[in-house]
């Protein structure tokens, strides 16, 4: 019974088509599988290549920019540290204030440091105020101009100059001294390198010309014998 059903379906006409149809179907299925997998693999590889090429270009640009930095700019790295130090520069500013007061014939009568605080811009700030006897207004202007262009950086917040009862000019100046922590880590290697903008270059030139405080280096002394160890 079964044999006769097979014979009915698998007639010689069908049998002659069965071979090529099965081969054709097999090829089509294989073709679809290869195309599908191949396409997705190539797509993945293309996107990986794009990413790696981008990173490569970024690194190349960064390297080129690092090699192209003019040496003059790098020499200013110590100047900017003096202009904006990482420790409270109050004493240095007082020393600068005294120096410029002397140079401009001002006599410093009182000086005060107070209110150390942190600002929102990762800066620390301290207020300084000084009282002066001033010979004339021109000396006061020259003194202020010296203060504006001196390192460490300070801002002049308020100034009052008045005639005293005795007829002499007296001034009171309020300034702020600033300092900030140093950056502690380098950005990731593949992060793009940002060059100095025109404004930053101008600012660098300006602060590099600020008059620097005078530091005294004590010469090393040779150890000697103390005759009286209690003195």
């Amino acid at each position, binding site marked *: 019974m079964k044999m006769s059903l097979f014979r009915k379906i698998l007639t010689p006409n069908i049998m002659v088509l069965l071979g*090529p149809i099965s081969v054709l179907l097999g090829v089509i299925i294989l073709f679809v599988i290869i195309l599908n997998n191949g396409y997705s693999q190539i797509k993945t590889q293309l996107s990986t290549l794009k990413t790696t090429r981008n990173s490569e270009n970024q690194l190349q640009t960064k390297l080129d920019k690092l090699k192209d930095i003019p040496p003059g700019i790098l020499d200013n790295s110590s100047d900017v540290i003096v202009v904006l130090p990482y420790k409270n520069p109050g004493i240095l500013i007082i020393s600068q204030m005294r120096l410029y007061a002397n140079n401009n014939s001002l006599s410093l009568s009182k000086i005060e440091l107070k209110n150390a605080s942190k600002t929102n811009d990762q800066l620390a700030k301290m207020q300084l105020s000084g009282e002066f006897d001033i010979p004339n207004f021109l000396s006061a202007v020259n003194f202020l101009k010296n203060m504006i262009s001196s390192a460490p950086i300070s801002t002049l917040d308020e100034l009052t100059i008045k005639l005293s009862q005795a007829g002499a000019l007296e001034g009171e100046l309020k300034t702020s001294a600033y300092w900030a922590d140093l950056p502690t880590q380098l950005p990731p290697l593949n992060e793009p390198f940002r060059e100095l903008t025109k404004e930053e270059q101008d600012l660098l030139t300006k602060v590099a010309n600020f008059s620097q405080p005078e530091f005294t280096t004590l010469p090393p002394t040779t150890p000697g014998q103390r005759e009286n160890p209690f003195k």
Partner: protein
Amino acid sequence: MSVNLLPQELRPKGSYVKLSKTLKKFALVSTIVMLVTSSVVLASYLLLRYQISSSIKKQDELKGNIKALEQTEQKMILIKDRLDKIGKIEKSDNINKGVGILEDVLGTLEENVFLEEVELKPANAQVVIVTGNSLELTHFLSKLMSQVKLVRIDLVSLEYGPTKGYEMKLSLSR
């Protein structure tokens, strides 16, 4: 001479044999196309793999070169960090403009016109001018307006006393 011993009903019809031959040709062509496509896909895949690996190799080389310039980068990061903060300090309220105004006002003073008091604040500069007569006062004001670059001049007060003369308080902003 071939002799067909199969019964006639077991032989496929001529049209089916023809169709079978066509299908065989199709199968052959499809196989060739599939083999060519597979080769192209495989070659592209291998080429891309090669390009990726050489790009990664180049990246490693570049990273090494950048590492060698670490000191330069450190200095630049430091300079940028300081400049960024110095820029913020420079933009904060200060009397730098006021110092310029005071210098210019001093330049406009004449023989019998005196500057008696100065108060510099971030918003403005206040000066007290004393002079013996009103003519000199007028002359000073016209000189101030023409020679000093100012955005605004406010007369805060004007007093007269027989011994002191005219005392004028001005608020100046640039």
